[in-house]
């Protein structure tokens, strides 16, 4: 029928248009990914700063809401694993705000204290997003584990917003719990983050991470991986070299996930103290 033929032609036209748009979007995101990658620390500089370490970074989409951040200042190394609200494009936009804010704070800081960096970061995010704690405004922000390791004194400062720090010493996993508040506005009035200080020892391995790995659905019962198995996994692998640890984490993740969709961006940083 000539009419059907017309409809068919229209459908083909729409299909082509959608394909064209999709191609454009993917190209645009790939370019955004290049920019985001350029803002993240280069792998060469990571190994120069954190000699024996790995970073397991697996974004859910082309661009990511998780990011890692490393900064060196005199004898101290500052590093963080950060999870911005959302993933994909919105998460990536927040991550750029987070990276630039962190750089700005440490450049102007007189004394280095992990909790003060988080306090200041929260001020910057609140100001940037015009958050005042009143109803009806954006509750966007980020969860973070921030560490400052002094190579000379082997002292580690940790401050966390909703994300913990694990360190394994003599086959025992120790957890330092975070403050239960985000970087950004929340239901309760802002108070200072706690500054946790631990004297690290040679051979200790520490891990900071976002919630992507433990929250991934999969396995035989199609449930979340959860934190206890995650701790056990780290305990199992912590004695292996860092590269191997990263590979095991990756293979374990895929084995667990199987055909399920990746739920969130994934970021795990592991550092061995030498």
């Amino acid at each position, binding site marked *: 029928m000539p009419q059907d033929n017309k409809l068919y032609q229209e459908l083909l036209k729409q299909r082509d248009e959608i394909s064209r748009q999709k191609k454009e979007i993917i190209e645009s995101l790939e370019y955004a990914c290049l920019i985001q990658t350029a803002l993240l620390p280069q792998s060469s500089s990571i190994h120069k700063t954190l000699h024996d370490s790995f970073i397991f970074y697996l974004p859910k989409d082309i661009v990511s809401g998780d990011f890692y951040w490393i900064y060196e200042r005199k004898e101290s190394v500052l590093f963080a694993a950060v999870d911005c609200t959302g993933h994909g494009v919105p998460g990536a936009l927040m991550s750029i705000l987070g990276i630039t804010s962190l750089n700005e704070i440490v450049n102007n800081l007189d004394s280095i204290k992990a909790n003060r960096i988080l*306090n200041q970061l*929260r001020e910057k*995010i*609140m*100001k940037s*997003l015009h*958050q005042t704690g009143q109803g009806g405004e954006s509750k966007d922000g980020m969860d973070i584990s921030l560490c400052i390791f002094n190579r000379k004194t082997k002292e580690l400062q940790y401050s966390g917003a909703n994300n913990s720090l694990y360190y394994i010493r003599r086959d025992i996993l120790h957890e330092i719990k975070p403050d239960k508040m985000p970087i950004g506005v929340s239901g309760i009035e*802002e108070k*200072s983050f706690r500054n946790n200080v631990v004297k690290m020892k040679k051979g200790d391995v520490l891990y900071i991470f976002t919630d992507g790995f433990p929250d991934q659905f999969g396995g035989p019962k199609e449930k979340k991986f959860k934190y206890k198995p995650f701790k056990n996994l780290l305990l199992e692998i912590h004695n292996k070299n860092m590269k191997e640890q990263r590979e095991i984490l990756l293979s374990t993740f895929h084995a667990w996930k199987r055909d399920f969709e990746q739920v969130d961006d994934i970021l795990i940083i592991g550092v061995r103290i030498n």
Partner: protein
Amino acid sequence: MKLIGFRIQNFRSIIDTGCTYLSPDNITGLIGQNESGKTSILEAINSFFTGTISEDILRSDLSLPCVHCVFEIIKVDVEKELNEKRLPDGVIDEIKKKETIILKRSWGEDITSRIELAGDKVFEIYRGFYDKREKEEKNIKERIEEAISEHDNAIRKSDKAVSEKEEKHHELEAAKEKLTQLQKKYKSRKNGKNENTIKDNITGAKKHLEECRNIYVAAGKNAEILASEARQLSENANLAGESIQAEKNFLINKKELEESYKELQKCQRIFDMSYDEKERRASRTQLDSSNETYVRVLRDYEQSKEDAIQKKIIAFKVLSGDSIYEVKNEIKKEKPYIDKYYSLEEAGRKLFNYVPEFIFFEDFLSLLPDRIDLHDIHTENTNIEGYKAAKNFLLVSGLNEDFFQQTNNRILKHKIEKLNKEITINFQDYWRQSIGKHNKIKINFELEHYDNSNPDKSGLPYIEFWIKDREERLYPKQRSRGVRWFLSFYLELQAAALSKNGSNIVILIDEPGVSLHARAQEDVLKVFDNIKERVQIIYTTHSPHLIDLNKLYRLLAVQRAVDEDESSETKVFDTKSLTTASTDTLSPIYSLMGIRLSEQKFIQKKNNIILEDIATFYYMKALTDMKGFEKQVFYLPATGVSNIRSLVNMLLGWGIDFLVLTGTNKEGNDLKHDLTKHLFANNEAEANKKLIQFDHFKSIEDMFSTIDFKKYILHKRIGIPESNLEYIVNNNLSRSILASNFMREVKDSKLKWGNLDEETRDNFSHLFDELSRSLE
């Protein structure tokens, strides 16, 4: 709207105060010596509101007075209020951005005044707007004049063509005549003599005649064309001419209106100044007559203005090619003679409706008298002592003329008794709330009539006031000045609240403390504090008892440019520049500090710490208490780092030991460098013991963590990435007020050392440790 600042120019001894801001907490005190110009400032602000000034206000240099008042926009939607016409683009945006408006009242040589919207940016926008409009007007005017000139040229050309045509006609006639003559000559020739010559001449003449005829016909056609052109242009020229004439009529009417207005103002002044009823009656007739003339002239003026604008627009549009019919129809619909834009004056007048009520409270008129004639009240004889207070009394009691017409004496007495009770209860309540004490005085008024001992007034009614307590019944003037002042002030407040229907009030009070004893003066301050949420107060004083040492930011210092020269101009210094005021001007503050010094052991032989300003003083005092600092310290606030040098010298002179505490900023560093060099002969170790700085902090506010700063000082949840001091400066906040409120919270025990976070505690602990090492 809330009054937040003023600028006074050419008002008595004042040449230009510059833009001066009032205290943000609604109480502003003007301190200064007698004749410094304090009262002139109050009068100028009051004149801004009333629009009236007396001739003695004018300066001898003939510069005319002008008062700007700055208002913060509160509860007024300026865009909505100014919706009848338009404002030039950008004015509303500017007002919204600044959240303030500036109104200016200026007076002319005839002391008539005008109020207008002001402000540099607003003025600039209006100037651009008027320049554009002026160009358009000029364009129209040029086009109209051009039409007349075109028509004149066309007439001239047409006239010239007609003359040329006439000339050609004469030439044609002459050629005809010449041919006739030759033909006659030919006919009368004899014996064929010269025949050939004549024939040749006739042929030549015929040819010439033909030529002349052709020229004449051409000239005729040219004249017709030019006449037709002139006719066509005459229609445009008529319109242009009508427009020019209408403009001339308008200018004549405008001049007449100005003269008529001046006359009306003059009559009004004479009427206002008439002393008694007789004068008042005489001047009333004159005032009515000039008012009638003014109304008539105003009508003519409005009519001629409308006519001139209409005709100008018709002329311009028709000259630009529109059809006259369409243009007239358009004008009927759009009424172009109504200006669609507010002038600065119109906008100013409109916004003036929303400014607070200004009340001038002064002793002579505002203090309750012993008695007042009803006749003086009814005829509004404002020159009578206590007139305003008596009028307020009647207003607050709800009494009008009809009340006193009551013929039944018993009913009248009963009503008066009831009112006396009511007003007494209300006043006692006010006294208790404002001053925090009880009093048992009763206020009474009675209606009496003059007897024969006053033959001039015999039989006429008057009101007598009494203030009674348990023991005695006295006239107001027999009571203490304090009671009389508070009662009158109470009446003023109540009357203002009634007449202004709840909107803002600004009370200007000249020397409220004069002749009151010290405690009563302190009670006056209590009353001010009690009413400051609903009433703004600006008062003059040279009494230390009317100054709160904890609130020096409330003060403006007023003094002559040249000390003790009453002919020199008046200068105003705000809190930030108090240090530049003279010692005499600041004497009330010094007296107060002196009093406190002796009473509170403000300063001791040892352990005195000089601080850079009052804000630092409040914080240090509060934190010393919170921390439970083990050493006894005495803080001495300077009024700025630059003033520390003189305090240091003073203490050195008295042989008193001290430390100096400043921020780590340029001024603090310079001071430290200077004192190290001059006091400690460059011995840095010694100097470091005595000259202490806030570690790496520019000011004491920066020693608070941002979290504590927001929570306990700002009381706001907002992201502050900058330093606390930068936030205060960027947001134009008062450091002193924030610090004073913080100290109050600490005093009220709402805030403890443990409430502060670790960062703040670290910073201050470090400072106190350092102080502790340096103190004995």
